[in-house]
């Protein structure tokens, strides 16, 4: 085989792989949203995180099965005081938020869920809470608690594991999302929108000081003192029940100099 023939074969393989990759993520279209509040280098912040899922054909998107959120490097999520208590998933399922210490709360938000009923569908907006779970293999575990009431009454607990990144403290939050049946034996609901936070905004913790209970605000993850070139880049891989997957990215721009 000549050199040109080898190159041609190589190109054919590359193009085939590229097409397969696009096809793997062609059914659902995902938009990732990220933010910092406040946007101040070197300071504690609350990370805003959300996504929108749409079906390319305009129908209900396939149910989300897994999500891997890659965090930008340089963010210090180790020296925060978020999650000073552990929330056990069993206690959460049994008693709701009352089953866990307020000091285990990491953030909160909501979701928008499409619930298929026969030919039609309804929507539901469950509250979403993020809490510090029991560590797994030395990794931080985030427990998500979704509390929906109408039209489907369901409380769902699922977990994400923070996998170590490099020396620069990047990492990924890998989350398996359970399929939630609309009705017994019915098709699962589809998550189409999520907005949540990880950070001290809106959270109050408590501690005992000299016999008194004192409230305080936890310290959030801290932004580095220098902004990475091009801003803070997040990316997330989404896996769906129909076997497709797609990747979305979002960049929080560098704060303006004051």
């Amino acid at each position, binding site marked *: 085989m000549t050199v040109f023939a080898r190159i041609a074969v190589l190109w054919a393989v590359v193009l085939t792989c590229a097409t397969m990759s696009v096809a793997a993520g062609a059914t659902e279209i995902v938009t990732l949203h990220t933010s910092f509040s406040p946007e101040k280098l070197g300071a504690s912040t609350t990370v805003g995180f959300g996504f929108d899922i749409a079906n390319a054909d305009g129908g209900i998107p396939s149910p989300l099965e897994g999500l891997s959120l890659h965090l930008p490097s340089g963010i210090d999520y*180790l020296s925060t005081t978020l999650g000073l208590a552990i929330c056990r998933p069993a206690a959460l399922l049994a008693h709701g938020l009352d089953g866990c210490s307020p000091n285990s709360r990491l953030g909160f938000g909501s979701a928008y869920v499409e619930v298929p009923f026969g030919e039609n569908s309804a929507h539901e907006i469950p509250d979403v809470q993020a809490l510090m779970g029991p*560590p797994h293999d*030395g990794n931080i575990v985030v427990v998500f608690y979704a509390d929906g009431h109408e039209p489907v009454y369901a409380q769902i607990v699922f977990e994400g594991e923070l996998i170590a990144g490099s020396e620069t403290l990047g990492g990924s939050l890998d989350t398996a999302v359970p399929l939630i049946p609309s009705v017994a034996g019915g098709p699962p609901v589809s998550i189409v929108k999520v907005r949540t936070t990880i950070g001290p905004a809106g959270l109050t913790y408590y501690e005992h000081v000299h016999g008194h209970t004192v409230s305080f605000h936890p310290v959030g993850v801290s932004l580095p003192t220098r902004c990475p070139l091009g801003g803070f880049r997040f990316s997330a891989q989404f896996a769906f029940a129909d076997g497709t997957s797609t990747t979305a990215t979002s960049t929080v721009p560098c704060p303006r100099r004051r």
Partner: protein
Amino acid sequence: MQRISRVSSATIVAVLACIAGVMQMYGAGSASAFVSRSLALKEEAKLHLTSKTGFTLNEQGVVVGTVKGTIYIHLRLTSNSSVVSEVNIYPPGGSLSGLGSASYHVDGGFAVFVGGLAVTRGTGSYAHAHGSDLRFTGTIQRRGDAVAVQLSGLLTV
């Protein structure tokens, strides 16, 4: 008079022999004067945060155990699962310095690290100190960054 001289000669010989023995024992005047011995370390220390720079916690406290004194630790988080440490202990009459690395994980209100430490240098009474297989463990109280550490193993001094 003759008797006294004999006694004096014997005394001088004895003293010279004694000095020679002592010199041989301690190798006086030579570089091989040091005689090493092992010290079984079993230390505990409680430290408080003095400053924080990036991913490094600078801590100061008091160590008790086989060696007692002031202890300074610099803990640098290198990922969400590892930490490296520089430890300096100042007992009376000298100092000990070491470098360590450990695995690290957060467990609610505490972060826990477990690993090893090597004593890399010393001064004064510990000028010849070395030990490379010391166990170094501890906890960091996430609210306030107070640290408790344990150090154990054989140290050659």
